[in-house]
């Protein structure tokens, strides 16, 4: 428990680590989401053209 208190600096230390991991996670999630959206958009367009031919 003493370790978690960080000698009285817990709010400063833990908030920095939490923000860092949140940014790592958010970057990963956003990259995955954008890739899927772009892929799906191209897929829909190409398949629509193929169906018309």
């Amino acid at each position, binding site marked *: 428990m003493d*370790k978690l208190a*960080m*000698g*009285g*600096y817990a709010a*400063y*230390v833990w*908030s*920095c*680590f939490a*923000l*860092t991991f949140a*940014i*790592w996670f*958010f*970057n*990963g999630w956003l*990259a*995955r989401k*954008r*890739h*899927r959206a*772009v*892929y799906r958009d*191209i*897929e829909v*367009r*190409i*398949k629509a053209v*193929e169906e018309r031919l």
Partner: protein
Amino acid sequence: MWKFLHKMASPPYFYKLAKTLAPWFAVPGILLIAYGSFAGLFVAPPDYQQGDAFRIIYVHVPAAYLSMMGYMIMAIAGGIGLIWRMKLAHAVAAAVAPLGAAFTFLALVTGSVWGKPIWGTWWEWGDPRLTSELILLFLYFGYMALRGSIDEVAKADKASAVLALVGAVNIPIIHFSVEWWSSLHQGATLLKTGGPAMDSAMLYPLLAMILGSSLLFGAQLLRRVRTEVLYRERRTRWVRNMILSPEAPA
């Protein structure tokens, strides 16, 4: 060498290669970050002056390093794109900007949170390291705004590459600001003449965090470049063939 670079610059080749490479960056990166975080938070001894507040170094230094590394990648890729007209280089520059901006923001916030208990202030406008890092964030924002304001991709690539190259002058200013001017910010700890000024119990977790963060940054950049390549090449035959193939990879 040139043959390999020429092959790498091919969008379909890079698109497939990046998917294969990404886990080789991500997995060791995550493991190193896990080790560095645990050892930095619980194993490294407290600093004799800053106490446990110094542990913010384990997230602040990698973020600051990536903020500058991201900009260097953006400027070099933009320069390569301008000189050799390599489309993939422009895609790399466009993809790295949001990542670099995120880590510049993180470096500024963690630095500010560290500054409050140690310096007694969240922010100091007269400090050269803090203001030059803030300028870096504005350069990233400017780069992304410029790209977003030009519809034609080729024109956006050229204009933003020039901005990235001009803004690169800020990188040595950030790095040497603590030596050139009086600053609240501490001087170099790792890249110091005579070796790092840290005990190994504090140093190894920091090196693990820097290396791990760089690897994970690389993995996330590869994913972003793949998306950028896919979008730019959406009207090409290889994208059409890939999507219509029975084992269409995402």
